[in-house]
């Protein structure tokens, strides 16, 4: 397996490989999101309790799931970057952080907009919303730390360490917030638990979820390419490539 993976430690090969993947991800994302969102907005049935406001679910839940998985993905990338000294892994972690932050923000905003009609208030210190907010802080910390360094290779390493520390903390934070939440407000929120989904709700959800997932992949590929270029700006292949693109 290592032999097979080895060429991808070369920035040039990875750059071109990523470049080949990007259009696939982009088109898959556009198609899946077009189908999924149309289905979700027009054809999916309204929830019997929450009515049409349930349509927010098709953005909120994929965004929330992705926001957490991106953080874990970022931490795994950072960890492999730290252990095996892979510069490209650091670059991919740096590419993932802003994408994750945006999805966390979307999950928060849609959560608030969903909460207003359901709970009667924009914000509620619900365990899931609170841990999502803290996740946003963690993302912003990683991004801020990354921006604070002039040297991008150092920035990647420092932000990577923070991402790993954060990922160790996430379960603790999540657990503590959940525990804090049950302590302070009892079971008032539980009626807003997972609704039993029927098949005609499940399919549009899957389309939306994978549409957003491929969106993440496409944007990450683009940002990853940018990171590779900016970290290898003195290499001949980068110079040739830039010369060709900017005439």
């Amino acid at each position, binding site marked *: 397996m290592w032999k097979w993976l080895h060429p991808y430690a070369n920035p040039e090969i990875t750059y071109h490989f990523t470049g080949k993947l990007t259009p696939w991800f982009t088109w898959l994302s556009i198609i899946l999101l077009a189908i999924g969102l149309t289905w979700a907005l027009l054809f999916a049935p309204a929830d019997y309790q929450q009515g049409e406001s349930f349509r927010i679910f098709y953005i909120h839940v994929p965004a929330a799931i992705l926001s957490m998985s991106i953080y874990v993905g970022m931490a795994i990338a950072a960890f492999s970057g730290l252990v095996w000294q892979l510069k490209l892994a650091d670059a991919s972690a740096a590419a993932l952080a802003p994408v994750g932050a945006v999805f966390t923000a979307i999950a928060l905003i849609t959560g608030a907009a969903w909460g207003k009609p359901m709970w009667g208030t924009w914000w509620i210190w619900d365990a899931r919303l609170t841990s999502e907010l803290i996740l946003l802080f963690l993302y912003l910390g990683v991004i801020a730390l990354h921006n604070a360094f002039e040297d991008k290779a150092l920035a990647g390493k420092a932000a990577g*360490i923070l991402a790993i520390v954060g990922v160790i903390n996430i379960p603790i*934070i999540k657990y503590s917030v959940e525990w804090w939440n049950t302590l302070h407000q009892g079971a008032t929120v539980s009626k807003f638990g997972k609704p039993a989904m029927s098949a005609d709700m499940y399919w549009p959800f899957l389309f939306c979820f994978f549409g957003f997932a491929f969106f993440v992949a496409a944007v990450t590929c683009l940002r990853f390419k940018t990171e590779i270029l900016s970290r290898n700006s003195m290499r001949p292949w980068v110079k040739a490539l830039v010369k060709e693109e900017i005439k």
Partner: protein
Amino acid sequence: MMSINIPSYRQAFMLMLKRDLTIALRHKDDIFNPLLFFIIVVTLFPLGIGPEASTLSRIAPGIIWVAALLATLLSLDRLFKADFADGSLEQMMLIPQPLFIIVLAKIIAHWLITGLPLIFIAPVLAVLLHLNENSYGALMITLLIGTPVLSFIGAIGVALTVGIKKGGVLLSLIVLPLYIPVLIFATSAIDTAAMNLPYSGQVAIIGALFFTSFTLAPFAVSAALKVSTN
């Protein structure tokens, strides 16, 4: 080995601890300023919220703990900054003992200088805030186990930002979210104690956080220092 006498791990640890404590005792304002900050922040709350004893005693644990978080955060800067500025940090990283030992000594010295005084002054502030009488024990215990956790986690943030010129605000942005579990369990232990219920569960969790950060944080700090001094 040649005749050079390499100190054992314990000797290196004690040497580092003694050095940091001596330096801190020479700059007394390093000890007193965060303490003063802690006291002032706590006195601001009754002025902002109103002097009713019932309200104050309800929010006292939160105020004291949040103020302790902020005071620790304020004092964190001096953990590595001076040593980084005059280059002695890089020298320390060259000594044959693992960096883990040095880092551990520095963090413990930092806690002795800034964390311990907070614990002594906290009961006085608790009186000002009309903290429930049953809660004093819990307040002391949570501060005793909790503030080292703050120093350990904070050290990671300082180590990451020590090379950056405007690291102060960034440091709080990085470190404060990581402090949340300590805050939650500590205040809840104090609240539980006020209701005369056993709070050993919360204390046990803070203890777990303490040992986790005690064992893991120095590794993260060492890795971060290697990045920062690059």
